[in-house]
């Protein structure tokens, strides 16, 4: 994953925001949910992205005790994060079908 493009990183960031907007998750949980969605990335690649999203104040991480005992860092979306997710959604929707069409035509 790491040597692949900025584009993929941007999309992955959008997906992380989307998952966190639905529920509060910790790192491992997030990796599992991405995989359940069929987004197959190296599990570790989420941590640098989580750090970056925190730096940009799009998400907020907090260490607290989990139900099963040990401390875990749980992530929630900030209001800036919601705005960023909305922008991502719009960009994605406006690009999705034209790109699909273009690629389909190219393939036929």
């Amino acid at each position: 994953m790491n040597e692949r493009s900025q584009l993929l990183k941007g999309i992955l960031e959008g997906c992380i925001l989307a998952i966190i907007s639905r529920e509060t998750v910790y790192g491992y949980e997030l990796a599992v949910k991405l995989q359940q969605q069929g987004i197959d990335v190296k599990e570790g690649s989420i941590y640098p992205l989580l750090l970056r999203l925190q730096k940009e104040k799009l998400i907020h991480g907090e260490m607290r005790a989990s139900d099963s005992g040990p401390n875990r860092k749980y992530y929630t979306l900030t209001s800036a994060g919601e705005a960023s997710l909305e922008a991502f959604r719009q960009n994605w929707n406006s690009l999705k079908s034209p790109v699909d069409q273009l690629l389909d035509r190219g393939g036929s």
Partner: protein
Amino acid sequence: MNTLVDENNEKREQLNVENKKVYEDMLVYVRLSFDKSEAETEEVLMELLDHLLILQEEGRDSRELFGSDPKQYAREIVGELPQALPKKVRALFMMGICYFLGFYLFTSGLIQTILAYGFHHLEQTKTYSLGTTIVGLIMGVAALAILAYSVFRYIQWSCFRHTSKIKEYILSGLMFAVFPGVIVLAMYLWLPSFGPTVVLPVYWMGIVGVVFLIMAKLLGRKI
């Protein structure tokens, strides 16, 4: 913050030999990036450790977490950590300077005093050129700072390389001891005398040295 470090120390024991090696290299590499926020650093290290422990339980390889190039991954993590010079690092830096000046001044003062009063090899007073003394001390501190920085970088560089750690630490230690000595000696030989001069008894240096050592001790207590 220390609770996270302690928790990390305990949890790390659950790793198997192979995972422990990779993880500890990661830990050293990331922690040695000392200009990063300490809280964020320890938190991400804990997240990675938790994740690795789960992989280990599931019988999966650490490569699924760190990729095929763990050093590159560590670099990526460090690159995203927020910049901050923690108070602790600043205090450590000041303490290092005080210890360096303290030991240097105290030992040279002591040796000169013994030679002068005990064996009458030296005069009991010495003429100090203030300009030379100050420039010399600043250069010494700068040399020490550069050296400490390069030792940090050197250890970082040596992470994820499978050579004997002990040999490398001894090597860095030697560098640490020899290099400042050479600088100080070079300054004695080549730095010209300039600035106003004062004549002081030779034990003066020892006394100033003790003052620096006390300051270093006090700084150390705060950390």
